[in-house]
């Protein structure tokens, strides 16, 4: 199940989207998410859908691969749908037992689901087309002004990129420890909630120990390679805007303006 998470996983391909500057993609993703909360009505819906479809097509990431990223949030989706479906007041459409569904509820549920799914897909486009390193570089650059507020932007982005690198390693490790304890007769599935929580101890303790050991090793390895914070550091791949980035900024701005206009006019 853990393997299905596509957020934070890079999908290598050569596309216009892949080649964009991460700062551009970050900004565009933010604008897109914003637009998801602004749009109203069918025309707005058409606009956000069109934008998403277009960008996914341009990114050359297979659609099926992208949809896999939705699996882990299926539960959240279902809960959102149920809440909107049953708890939105309005003229009942169908009624059974103590519950009723109104036309308004149906519409709300529909739009909320669309918002959530598009939000995940939209941010997946960002993470699937940007290597974790580019992503953190982009964040570091975009957030640089915060340095003045004594927020350690470089350190935070370094931590993020290391976390991203170690996610697959720790997932594999979890799998290994789980199997080792299963081989000793451990049971992670049966029993009530308390028993289940207790049965996680043989999994979590070794996992934490291993994570600490790795953190310790890594800190030493970084020190040995002369790491001493962001000061005086150069970059192998410094971020540089290209023409396509300017166009992308313009297009995203125009898109957002369009969605706002649609909301006001209609």
């Amino acid at each position, binding site marked *: 199940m853990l393997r299905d998470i596509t957020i934070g996983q890079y999908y290598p391909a050569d596309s216009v989207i892949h080649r964009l500057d991460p700062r551009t993609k970050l900004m565009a993703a933010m604008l897109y998410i914003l637009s998801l909360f602004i749009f109203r009505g069918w025309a707005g819906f058409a606009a956000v859908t069109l934008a998403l479809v277009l960008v996914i097509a341009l990114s050359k990431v297979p659609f099926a691969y992208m949809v896999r990223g939705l699996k882990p949030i299926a539960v959240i989706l279902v809960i959102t749908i149920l809440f909107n479906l049953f708890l939105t007041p309005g003229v009942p459409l169908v009624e059974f037992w103590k519950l009723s569904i109104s036309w308004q509820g149906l519409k709300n549920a529909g739009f909320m689901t669309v918002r959530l799914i598009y939000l995940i897909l939209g941010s997946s486009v960002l993470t699937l087309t940007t290597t974790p390193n580019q992503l953190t570089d982009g964040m570091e650059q975009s957030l640089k002004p915060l340095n003045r507020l004594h927020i350690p932007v470089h350190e935070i982005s370094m931590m993020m990129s290391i976390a991203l690198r170690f996610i697959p390693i720790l997932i594999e490790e979890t799998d290994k420890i789980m199997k080792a304890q299963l*081989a000793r*007769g451990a049971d992670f599935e049966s029993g009530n909630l308390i028993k289940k929580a207790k049965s996680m101890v*043989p999994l979590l303790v070794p996992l934490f120990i291993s994570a600490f050991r790795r953190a310790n090793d890594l800190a030493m390895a970084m020190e040995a390679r002369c790491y001493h914070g962001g000061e005086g550091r150069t970059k192998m791949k410094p971020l540089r805007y290209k023409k396509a980035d300017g166009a992308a900024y313009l297009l995203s701005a125009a898109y957002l303006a369009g969605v706002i206009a649609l909301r006001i006019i209609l």
Partner: protein
Amino acid sequence: MSIILDKVNYVYSQNTAYEIQALKNINLKIEDGEFIGVIGHTGSGKSTLIQHLNGLMRATSGGIYYNGQDIYEEDYDRKKLRGKVGLVFQYPEHQLFETTIFADVSFGPKNQGFSKKEAELKAFTALRSVGLAEDYWYRSPFELSGGQKRRVAIAGVLAMEPEVLILDEPTAGLDPKGRDEILDQVAKLHEERRMTIVLVSHSMEDVAKYVKRLIVMNQGSVMLDGTPGEVFAHYQELEAVGLAAPQVAYLMHDLRKHGILAQGTATTLEEAKEAILQAFKK
């Protein structure tokens, strides 16, 4: 008592672009009381194979029979099987979690449903059999040295009193003395309790010294299966798949070429010594 694998196949990530056939049509019979070595380079399928033997992984197709019973049958107790076929993973010390060594070793038998007293009795015997001094038993397992931790982890599996013990590279990362201690301990379990042992190893010298039957895995299939002498006679085929025979086997070959030995299939140091001394006596 035996384990039979009948046409076992295992496919990772079936029906995706990443599909890999890790096991291909494996047919094996492991008899009671055997001491078997499994060799093969990384990715040859040996780890996948041993995880099938105790039911941790389920074959994509084919059957596995433990003492004649189909372990994939609906009402077969696979949890119980894991107690009978003990599996010690690579770097088993990474699974330790309890506050004391003794509690950690009792974990297995407790899971099997034994009372606290019975579980502790089994832990007691298991710790004894791996040769860990008693004054360590109530300390935290994290205070021990690497080799000691590993012995505790092996005891954790032995406490379940398995009939078959599978060890995946039990000596990885240990120094020469630590390596010999672990392997001698395993050999003792085999001799004294007639425990069936399956030893996965990268060291040709170690398997040649200890095991009586050697299985070579390559690309998910059993490539060779026989006594170490028989298997290492195929050293050219082994080299073709990135493996090798023990150094002494090559030496025997060289000495044959120079006419010093008439024949020589020795694969261990003792055998080689014997053969060479014999040749020089004449």
